[in-house]
């Protein structure tokens, strides 16, 4: 507990705290802007300054996006003579992580809305601005990249006013890349963003908006103190679970971890308390003290359910235990990742894994392959179906191969999302056609200014999981953008389609399809598999079946010729190298019965041009 002197110091400090996030679309310059603010306030030395510092994971750097949240404390000596404490809380910029974004925004009093002067507002930005408005944040519009030849400041200003309804007359004009307008932003942070409310003498209420894994200190939650104080030695309580931990350190990120004696209202920092499991400190939960405890938690906490599932299998079955370890390690830092053992006839032992969305899934797969060096086969993603059985019970099915027999099924419901699409008006026709073909149900269409249109559709998540995003981009020359959130479960005419290779059903290739699309998809997938599976010594039929009835078939003809033609003047090594290469290729495939199936085959359903 903090003493009297500490309390009054905290109250003094609280007046000069400014907590803010940066809201921007991918590529609109968020990370560069954050770097410039850090530079300008001399928060980090040149040595610490790596390009786009806040994005610390390699993968994030490569993809140029933020996956995990980071917060940094900046002490800024302002020209009014006061020293201000800025907390810049970074947010992920992807639809999979909307909930995390909303929680990190809840840790702020203000936000910089960064819009690319040449691109205008995108759907993702719009969604996040609405989240900020929901959280009562003071929003400062920033028009970035004004140095670009294609920049059109007035158009973007109008865009912000028309689309979001924010006054953009006083928008800050910047070029983060060129370092223009950074000082103006800092002035506005000081003048526009309110200092945090909150009472240091009330019981502790701290919002968990992120957590990370430290191999020596366990799970370290990132927190924003709303009320009360927290210090080393305090016994804290996680409000949703009642679990208690003893605090071993509190501190702030500058961006390295710097211990402090006490954190009070408005502070953004971390605490360590030998927390072993990421699921103990879920994002959105409230930390209080064991005594005195807050009477109720902060609003807005919900535990996240995975939206998308897939099977992850090691190519080399000896890697099974390593894969388990890799998932365990990733889970430490990612409470939203879930998995359980799965046994596939075709692929052997692996894990059925659940993710918040497609990007989340791709990132986990990539991290396993890259950081843990395990070659993976991932099956095509599936959504979670509510399967109502004739006996009145309901099963949740996330694995098509586990779908009950048709005669036991009364009806199947699938998750629908509300999809918001923003597009230049010339592509509206294309996009509406695309949405129709993906079983979308039109809701509304609205002009945003003269040139852009907002479309809202209710769409099966399944269709979005497939290739919707790629198709959307290609139908709009890359201009349309998409945001979506879960809407509801809706009954659909769904059937399970099995794929048979050489007469054997391959469980890992089973999929759920809409009855009306089954023939087309069955034909497309059998044709695609014919091209992907190499020829064998015998003819291999590839069939698609619904309830044992074959609806499509293709045939991989038997291999006719595979022999080294030439004798290279006695060079045996060359011949051997070639044979080794062929052997290696075979090894990277999975044997299904007596057929070697390459990894890509298990993802074919994702890239069907049907």
């Amino acid at each position: 507990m903090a003493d009297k002197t500490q309390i009054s110091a905290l109250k003094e400090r609280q007046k000069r705290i400014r907590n803010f996030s940066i809201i921007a679309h991918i590529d609109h310059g968020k990370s560069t802007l954050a770097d410039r603010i850090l530079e300008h306030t001399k928060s980090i030395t040149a040595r610490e300054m790596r390009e786009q510092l806040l994005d610390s994971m390699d993968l994030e750097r490569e993809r140029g996006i933020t996956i995990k949240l980071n917060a940094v404390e900046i002490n800024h000596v302002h020209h009014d003579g006061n020293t201000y404490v800025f907390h810049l809380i970074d947010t992920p910029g992807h639809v999979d992580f909307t909930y995390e974004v909303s929680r990190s925004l809840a840790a702020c009093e203000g936000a910089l809305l960064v819009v690319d002067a040449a691109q205008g507002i995108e759907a993702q930005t719009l969604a996040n601005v609405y989240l900020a408005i929901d959280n009562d944040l003071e929003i400062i519009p920033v028009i970035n990249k004004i140095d670009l030849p294609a920049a059109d400041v007035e158009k973007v200003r109008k865009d912000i006013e028309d689309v979001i309804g924010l006054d953009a007359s006083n928008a800050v004009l910047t070029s983060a890349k060129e370092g223009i307008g950074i000082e103006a932003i800092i002035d506005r942070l000081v003048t526009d963003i309110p200092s945090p409310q909150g009472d240091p003498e009330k019981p502790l209420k701290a919002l968990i908006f992120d957590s990370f894994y430290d191999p020596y200190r366990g799970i370290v939650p990132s927190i924003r103190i709303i009320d009360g104080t927290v210090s080393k030695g305090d016994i804290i309580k996680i409000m949703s679970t009642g679990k208690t931990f003893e605090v071993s350190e509190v501190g702030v990120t500058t961006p390295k971890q710097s211990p402090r004696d006490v954190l009070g209202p408005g502070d953004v920092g971390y605490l360590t308390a030998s927390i072993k499991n990421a699921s103990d400190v879920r994002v959105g939960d409230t930390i209080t003290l064991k005594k005195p405890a807050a009477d109720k938690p902060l609003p807005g906490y919900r535990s996240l359910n995975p939206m998308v599932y897939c099977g992850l299998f090691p190519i080399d079955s000896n890697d099974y235990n390593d894969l388990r370890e890799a998932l365990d390690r990733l889970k430490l830092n990612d409470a939203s990742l879930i998995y359980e053992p799965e046994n596939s006839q075709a692929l052997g032992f692996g894990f059925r894994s659940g993710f918040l969305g497609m990007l989340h899934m791709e990132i986990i797969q990539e991290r396993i392959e890259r950081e843990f060096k395990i070659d993976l086969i991932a099956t095509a993603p599936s959504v979670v179906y509510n399967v109502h059985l004739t006996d009145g019970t309901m099963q949740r099915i996330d694995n098509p191969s586990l779908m009950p027999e048709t005669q036991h099924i009364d009806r199947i419901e699938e998750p629908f999302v509300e999809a918001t699409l923003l597009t230049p008006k010339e592509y509206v026709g294309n996009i509406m056609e695309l949405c129709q073909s993906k079983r979308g149900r039109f809701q509304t269409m609205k002009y945003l200014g003269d040139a852009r249109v907002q479309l809202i559709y209710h769409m099966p998540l399944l269709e979005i999981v497939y290739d919707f995003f790629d198709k959307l981009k290609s139908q709009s020359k890359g201009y349309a953008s998409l945001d979506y959130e879960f809407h509801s479960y809706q009954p659909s005419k769904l059937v399970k389609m099995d794929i048979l290779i050489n007469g054997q059903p391959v469980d890992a290739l089973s999929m759920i399809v809409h009855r009306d699309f089954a023939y087309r998809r069955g034909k497309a997938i059998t044709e695609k598999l014919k091209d992907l599976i190499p020829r064998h010594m015998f003819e291999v039929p590839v069939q698609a079946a619904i309830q044992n009835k074959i609806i499509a078939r293709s045939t991989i003809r038997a291999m006719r010729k595979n022999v080294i033609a030439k004798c290279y003047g006695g060079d045996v090594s060359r011949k051997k190298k070639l044979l080794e290469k062929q052997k290696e290729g075979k090894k990277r495939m999975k044997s299904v019965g007596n057929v070697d199936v390459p990894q890509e085959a298990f993802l074919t359903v994702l890239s069907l041009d049907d």
Partner: protein
Amino acid sequence: MKGLYVHIPFCRAICTYCDFIKEVAKPEKQTRYINALIAEVTMAASRLSGVTTLYVGGGTPSLLKEGDLHALFQAIYAIVPRTQLHEVTIEANPEDITASKAKLFKSLGINRVSLGVQTFNDALLGFLRRTHKRDDVKHAVNHLKTHGIDNLNIDMIFAIPAQDEAILNDDLKTLIELNPDHISAYSLIVEEGTRLKTLIDKGEVTPTDEDTEAKMFETVMDTLTNAGYTHYEVSNFARPNRQSIHNRIYWENGEYIGLGVAAHGHEKGRRIANTARVKDYIERLECGRSPIVFDEPDEGLKDSLLMGLRLREGVSLATLKARHGTDVFTQYPELKTAQDNGLVEVVEGNLRLTRRGVLLGNEVFMIF
């Protein structure tokens, strides 16, 4: 039998499909290379005892100047007596074979010439960037026969992009009319780093599909066999008693010395290879250093099988057991599956590829 292979890495032009060690070089560089080669012959004198066949390959050995050829052969004969050699082969491009070249070959003791013909279709020859025309072949054969060299091989390539069944049949008809004693017929392989690969990657050329290639291979086998040739190795056909003695050494996993840039040898149970860079090769020999960059034990039974199964007669299981001390089917149980799939068969104690297996040899070789 013990072989000597000598590599001449020079060509007049680079063929579309070729990824051998070769270059287009000025005569001065060629002479410098020949001098280095002669130095290696001298250096290798002790290894050359007992050699019974000589094969000068390339590249294009026939483009060498008379003086260079003469000096090379004299240097070899100074160590390996001419009378000891059963077979002396040189590879030649048809356009190089003038009456005087044929006469020179004869005088050098060459008794077998391998002509790089590939196809008789002038358009395809142009595509392959060969430097001869259809009619050059007939003249070359005549010159060689006139000068008493009648043991001739003709190298052919099939499954060339745009080569249809009609062109192939015409190639085979023309070939049989020329009546060489030996024919090598290879299907075109698209190798990395060749112009052919680039053209295919760019979509300018469509490679022959596997079914057509297989069908063409069968046409080649049937037509040549019907014309009285024995199909004795995957890609080789011969009149009676005209099989290549030198090449059989490779297939029987026997001993051979390789001299020249990028040459490979098999000596006393070891695989040996020279540097693959011409400049490096010359520089090493000019300062008296060995050009050998690779010298490792061979792989015994595996090598015997990889090479021996290319022969249509196959390998004698008893001989292999005696030579390597292991039973083939015990060592490689998967051979049984290959046998069940009709790729290999055991006939009179010999393990060999079936006719189907000839086209699918790699599926068998991968077992080892």
